[in-house]
């Protein structure tokens, strides 16, 4: 299982990568493996605003469905619409396939997230 250095992680298995003031959010390798073959995603509309940890989208595999929670609050700048046609990219390359871009409203919310190392330990515990 791959965990990438230099980005943030959540307990619900999202990753967050911050560039300037934009937070790109996707799901981790652990998450895509647990879900299995992903067949459909539902993402929020550009311009919608969400508070931290709100459910903003849905990820569906053949026999499971999971909510996408936004790890940091703010306005949706963009949803990755390529995923509508090719949801399998979330399986193939989870860290390249960002799902939404959020205008980071409160940088301190990043403090609630885990580092790569912390996330690795968290996953180990989950597996047990």
């Amino acid at each position, binding site marked *: 299982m791959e965990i990438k250095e230099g980005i943030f992680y959540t307990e619900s298995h999202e990753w967050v990568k911050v560039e300037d003031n934009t937070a790109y959010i996707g799901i981790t390798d652990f998450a895509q493996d647990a879900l299995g073959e992903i*067949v459909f995603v539902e993402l929020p509309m550009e311009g919608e605003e969400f508070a931290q940890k709100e459910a903003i989208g849905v990820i569906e595999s053949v026999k499971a469905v999971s909510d996408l929670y936004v790890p940091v609050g703010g306005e949706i700048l963009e949803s990755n619409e390529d995923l509508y046609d090719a949801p399998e990219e979330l399986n193939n390359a989870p860290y390249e396939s960002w799902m939404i871009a959020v205008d980071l409203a409160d940088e301190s919310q990043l403090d609630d997230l885990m580092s790569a190392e912390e996330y690795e330990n968290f996953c180990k515990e989950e597996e047990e």
Partner: protein
Amino acid sequence: MRKEKDLIFEMSKPGRVAFSLPQDELEEIDLTDEIPAKYLRDEDPELPEVSELEAVRHFTELSTRNHGVDSGFYPLGSCTMKYNAKVNEDVARLAGFTATHPLQDEKMVQGNLELLYQMDQMLSEITGMDRFNMQPAAGAHGELTGLMIMKAYHKQNGNEDKNEIIVPDSAHGTNPASASMVGFKVVEVESNKEGLVDLAALKEVVSDKTAGLMLTNPNTVGLFEEDILEIAELIHDEGGLLYYDGANLNPIMGQVRPGDMGFDVIHLNLHKTFGTPHGGGGPGSGPVGVKEELVKYLPKPLVEKDGAEYYFDYDLPDSIGKVRSYYGNFGVVVKAYAYILALGAEGIKQVSEDSVLNANYLKEQLKEHYALAYDRICKHEFVLSGKKQKKNGVKTLDIAKRLLDFGVHPPTIYFPLIVDEALMIEPTETETVETLDQFIETMIQIAREAEEEPEKVQQAPHNTVVGRLDEATAARKPKLRWKSEK
């Protein structure tokens, strides 16, 4: 074994017909004079054009590509795939039933009303409830109806803030789905290590907001909820109602009655417990029964008797209304009625005993070879876990697919959710010792294969008309209909 089958549309040839209708006696009438062109169709629908024999062969071949109870063992947990008696098919096809119109005058359909009336009485006797209505078309529809009744009851008693329905985490998916459809908030309660509702956890979630608890008993892991009287008291003390999901009634008929255990509302699955065929996914029938104080909320109409005459009572001002047109899946009720006649009190009790005996026998013989989720006396079904086999890379799905090679319909898999790699097995009472032994042998062979030659199991099925199908592509790029190439 692999063999594709043409779609009926691909066999179509303009000019072929499979119908014969009387000559048009009214050639003088031209419909285009009567119906303006804007209402009429520009282009005909692409219906098939085949001969009668081609049509019959097509569907006959399709039937051979299908497994039913009559084809072989079908231990699909929670579905009670028992034998469907043939006499029931015959009597339900009597013209005196099939050729009656739901809007005929009551005086012309006294036989139908009598049957519905008696069915109500028989189901009430079996379950310990006071009154049944046959309108719901299936189990989930019965749940929806029962929950509407519960909502109406609380509303009329001024308890609209009772808006939570408690559902065990082992429950059928229809339970939370039905509850939330009716606008209840679903509160999940955990099962304990024994596979039963955790009383301590239940105490924590029960409150003055509790509208009711939905319970399957025996539950979906096949265990009888021993604490049922305590559970009932807990819910009733808070003014809540107890809902009985009748999917698993089969193993307790004649032993104990939901009404006596404290349940207030119940639905039955006539297509499970009462031997009516499942039809490939329906039609079922999901009668709803209630205790006296809830009778006034039942869907309308109810059948009543005045002297020797039966009639429909629509004068039920507190009724939740109709949940389906007319009187439900009447033709299914006819079959279930005939089933009960065939067994009588003695047979009904024998059904429950044999179904429990068969399940426990399989459980005891298989628990050496597969992990058993809960090692104790079960009722009509039990749950194995494929976790031993998973260590060799053989998943429960693989085991299920391998069973197909032996002509067995696999058990319910990956349900209930509380058991990892679950295989839920319900043999039913209609299977012989020989069939059970054969199944045990097959399961043992698969367990051995999982150790010695896992690929064989992982690549199964080998003997079916198609191999394992790509469900991911089906869901990603849905192709849900055939389309003409022209």
